[in-house]
């Protein structure tokens, strides 16, 4: 009896999650007249027209833009941030100026984005950086507080100083020590940082809206979805197809890396 109650409660929750997703998939293969007439019905006639329309409207460009922005930002984050974190952990105890630097680098955790929203848009416009490279620079910058916080915590906890001392005795300079010895040891934290930042950047909306909205060839997938829905106000079949493309792409990644994603996202926010 207890079991029955438990499963029915859990299944109700699952229905809440799955029904909107099912409706999105179903609507994407319906004609618009059927969406307005019978939103909950089974697709009849079944049609790929909406997908053909979205592809004709260039959804691949936006998918590609999102992919490039996400991957390049992620690579830069893992190249730049752990290096700084390592320098901070090793120097902070004996040198006060590194403590100051640490503070200035992670202060962003407490600052809501709205505080810098307008000045940063102006600044990027003045620098002629309302472009994809400009956006990547911003992702790298805004990833620093949280990623640095995670890396410094990890290095402090699991990377003993004896490791770099041994490398120095073997004749490594600071760069060699870092790249050959320290960077590989940080692998578990690289995974966490990559997951958090990739999901954030892939799904982000406000920054692309501020930086890339002016030129449609630069749009990311979420920005495209938003503008597309506005464009086809009375003809939303293709909009549903654009959501499905977004959902499916993330679903594939999610099903492959599920365990890492769940533990990475929760440990990233919890710490």
């Amino acid at each position, binding site marked *: 009896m207890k079991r029955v109650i438990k499963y029915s409660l859990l299944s109700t929750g699952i229905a809440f999650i799955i029904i909107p997703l099912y409706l999105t998939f179903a609507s994407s293969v319906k004609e618009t007249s059927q969406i307005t007439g019978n939103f909950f019905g089974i697709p009849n006639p079944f049609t790929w027209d909406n997908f053909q329309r979205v592809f004709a409207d260039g959804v691949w460009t936006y998918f590609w833009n999102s992919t490039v922005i996400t991957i390049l930002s992620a690579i830069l984050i893992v190249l730049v941030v752990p290096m700084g974190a390592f320098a901070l952990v090793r120097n902070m105890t004996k040198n006060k100026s590194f403590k100051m630097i640490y503070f200035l680098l992670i202060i962003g955790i407490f600052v809501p984005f709205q505080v810098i929203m307008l000045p940063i848009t102006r600044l990027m416009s003045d620098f002629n950086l309302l472009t994809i490279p400009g956006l990547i620079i911003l992702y790298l910058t805004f990833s620093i507080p949280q990623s640095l916080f995670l890396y410094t915590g990890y290095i402090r906890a699991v990377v003993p100083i004896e490791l770099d001392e041994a490398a120095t005795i073997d004749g490594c300079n600071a760069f060699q020590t870092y790249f050959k010895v320290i960077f590989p040891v940080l692998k578990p934290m690289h995974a966490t940082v990559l997951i958090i930042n990739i999901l954030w950047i892939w799904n982000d909306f406000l920054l692309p809206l501020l930086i890339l909205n002016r030129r449609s060839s630069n749009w990311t997938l979420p920005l495209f979805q938003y503008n597309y829905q506005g464009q086809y106000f009375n003809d939303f079949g293709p909009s549903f197809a654009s959501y499905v493309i*977004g959902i499916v792409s993330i679903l594939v990644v999610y099903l492959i890396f599920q365990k890492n994603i769940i533990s990475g996202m929760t440990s990233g926010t919890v710490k």
Partner: protein
Amino acid sequence: MKKSFLSRHWGYLFLIIPIVLQTVFFLTPLIQGFFLSLTNYTGLTQNYDLVGFSNYTAVFSDSRFISSIRFTTLFTIVMIVGQITIGLGVGLLLNEKMPGRGFFRTTYFFPAVLSTVTVGLIFSQIFNYGIPQIGELFNIEFLQTNLLASASTAPWAVSFVALWQGVAMPIIIFLAGLQSIPTEILEAAKIDGATEVQTFFNIKLPYLLPSISIVFILALKSGLTAFDNIFALTGGGPQNSTTSLGLLVYNTAFTFNQAGYANAIAMILFLIIIIISIVQLHISSRFEV
């Protein structure tokens, strides 16, 4: 032996890129943002005058700001209460070993990896075409219109969508918290004849306090700064009934062209978050031994 330049200064070299980026793209706009909040800058022309703190005092007589505070408070409370109760409830249900648990866990977490704006767009369509059809079918009057189109129902509809996605993470956080409870303690309680309610309040709940505090802070921050999903669902309307503070800053700056004033609102939001964070740190340091 004289030490090389590299061995003396490697620390700064390693940090040069983050320092430059943070200074140019974060600290500079942060200071500018504060400065602009003291001006009557419109965002359209380059000239502006210093107006002192008048932007800050102006908020108190601004009906848009007041209704935004009202909505943001409601929305944030719904987020906090909803995420803690639903997250804890589902977490407890999923805590025991049972068939299908992996599937439940995977599905319950999935909304967390979706784009918030996509979720907003999907639900705006569901509210527009889907829900009214249910209302007509079962003849339920209040469902027959678009719930997002009325100022009395829109805040609740928006909160529902935010919770739909927002409970995913708390479920996993609570589940992890529950699994950190040593099994010996739970078994001992069982042998002593403790009821499930007693076990929950006397053993599980104390262990879950850190998780509750984390979910509280996450929900609070996401509530106060909410933007994407509301932007996609209602754009802040109807009649500003769903304009969160985060959205108000955006609209004031880019729609109403009151950039200086928008920055003052952003600074107030910043201040609110600082105050709450300090209070929360004090409270949680008292709980954690």
